[in-house]
């Protein structure tokens, strides 16, 4: 049988959702039996591959790199899932939004703070510019299903993946969608 091609991606988030992913522990071996992880921050793959069956996206869209990757993911994945509260709502990553212009925030952090050298980190092609507002993934690309949670507990991720492997969308009722 053909292995399912599953990807996970990490945008503007703390990687906690991926930690929770790893918390699936031995079930990961079962997953490996039926699916290939074709892209993931926990696998050393540089380019997002084509022909992906489903991609779990952690994190909000906060900078130019996130934006580019999100669009690339959409173009190359049959199903895209918002994985965790940051992707679903912006969550902690979006807590800068009420503060307004990101440049001012960077100045407050890197210039005005007394223990800093007064420079905003800047390296073209390495440090991606921030977007004016942090947005949930579905405000950038079409999203097929949502797995809220900060992070989503391992059993919910497992349930979601099991559903995907069976060819259906993850459960979106009851405790399966509890935020926070």
């Amino acid at each position, binding site marked *: 049988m053909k292995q399912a091609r599953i990807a996970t991606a990490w945008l503007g988030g703390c990687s906690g959702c991926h930690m929770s992913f790893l918390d699936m522990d031995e079930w990961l071996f079962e997953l490996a039996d039926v699916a290939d992880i074709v892209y993931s921050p926990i696998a050393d793959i540089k380019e997002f591959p084509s022909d992906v069956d489903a991609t779990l996206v952690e994190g909000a*869209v906060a900078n130019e790199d996130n934006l580019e990757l999100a669009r690339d993911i959409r173009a190359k994945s049959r199903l895209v899932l918002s994985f965790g509260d940051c992707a679903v709502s912006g969550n902690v990553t979006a807590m800068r939004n009420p503060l307004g212009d990101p440049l001012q925030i960077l100045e407050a952090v890197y210039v005005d703070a007394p223990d800093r050298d007064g420079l905003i980190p800047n390296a073209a092609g390495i440090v991606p510019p921030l977007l004016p507002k942090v947005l949930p993934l579905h405000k950038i690309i079409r999203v097929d299903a949502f797995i809220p949670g900060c992070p989503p507990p391992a059993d919910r991720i497992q349930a979601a993946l099991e559903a995907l492997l069976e060819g259906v969308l993850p459960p979106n009722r009851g405790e399966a969608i509890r935020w926070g």
Partner: protein
Amino acid sequence: MAAPIDLHEVMEREREERFRTRWRVKACSSTACLSAGAGATIKAVEDLVEREDMALEVQVIPTGCMGLCSAGPLVRMMRRGGDESDYQKVTPEAAIEIVRSHVLDEQPVPEYELDVTMPFFTSQERVVLANGGVINPDRIESYVAHGGYQALEKALTTMKPKQVIEQIRLSRIRGRGGAGYPVASKWGLLASAPGKTKYVVANGDEGDPGAYMDRTIMEDDPHRVIEGIAIAAYATGASEAYIYVRAEYPRAIERLDRAIRVARRNRLLGRKILDTNFNLSVEVRIGAGAFVCGEETALLASIEGLRGTPRLRPPYPTEKGLWGAPTMINNVETLANIAPIIDRGGEWFASLGTEKSTGTKVFALAGDITNTGLIEVPMGTSLREIVADIGGGVPNGKEFKAAQTGGPSGGCIPAKFLDTSVDYDSLRELGSIMGSGGLIVMDEDVKMPDVAKYFMEFSMDESCGKCTPCRAGTVQMHSLLQRLTEGNGSKQDLRDLEHLCSVVRDTSLCGLGQAAPNPVISTLQYFRSEYEALIHEEEVVHA
């Protein structure tokens, strides 16, 4: 206690006064004409009369609205027992020329003459505005001379409260504030409500942008409103009344205040009115800039000195209103119709208009139309007649695109429905409402999504914030419309907008919220392609 006014004696005296001079100069001094400079025009005539010693020949009478606001200042020369000439755009210089020409040379001045045979004047049927351009609103005698307070006298001295309500029932008049609830039913509910203290409230919180019928009535014929309130109170057993006026109408407040004082002095208000056992006190209450206070329960909260947030109905105000007592709220234009109904009978009123929408309706005609101003037509007049004939059509060779009625709670009626009869039910069928009577004409250049956004911004700013769908839903609808009108909207945005229209319409607490989506719903219904043309091709395009 002073004796009450003797209406018949005042009438006699006024008739003599009317024939005292050979000429009467009536000058419209309503707000629109004053904005156009009527104050200086009137002053110029008064100075002329004094300077050239014409006081025995000419009397100057400032009057209420003559109707054609776009042609102001308006002046009417009236010859004793004879003909009248109407003039438009009368500057102080023109006024002097006109008065001198008439008085000294018996000659009209064609240059400024207003053609009163045009449909704007001939197609109207003035009931509510009958006194506009006729009486001096500052003089109760002037009102009485034209039949004022006769209806109150008739009701108090020859009719039982039940008979008064019966006439209202026969007239089949519906509320002029927007929803069109049968007036007699409301009166009946208050009349049968238990309790000693009952209130009548006149709703003069006319907030629809583009509507100024109620203001004109209150400014130009304040006693007509008071008389209507007094009859309503008599019929329903109320002994206290309030007139709630928006603070943006200082002249209306001033005139009503003065009219109330004068009416009290003349025993038309207060204790033992016209020597009967009927008592009524009336007080003006002032709004402070909140559209939502036009909603009747919010209005009551505001009269009580609270935040103007609507209350849950039921209980309806006729059960539990001001300070928990039974209260009836009628619109100012509704109340202005009461005296004529009692005077001439409910059947006469029902003979005007259509079967289900009787009487006349005052409209404020504005926007892309030749003749802007206040008009009064029988219910059921076609939109085409109002726009093309009375309004003189769309200027600058442009095409008529839509008529907006009902303000932020109404909708846009497209050209294909120009032959619609303007009445409560036909307008509702078209997805708009009668509203209080603002009628804004829009020409081909107006973009309908912009209009929808304009009204949504209005509703968003005016939301009281009590219920979630109106408070937060209007914000989201506005932001979706913003994105769409900027050309950044997606198909999903349009779907979300339509869904929110239903959510806000069906789940909001009060009429303001429930009606807030109407401008979007109606423009989507008739001008959907304009929205679709704005949509960005991609599914989601926020960044």
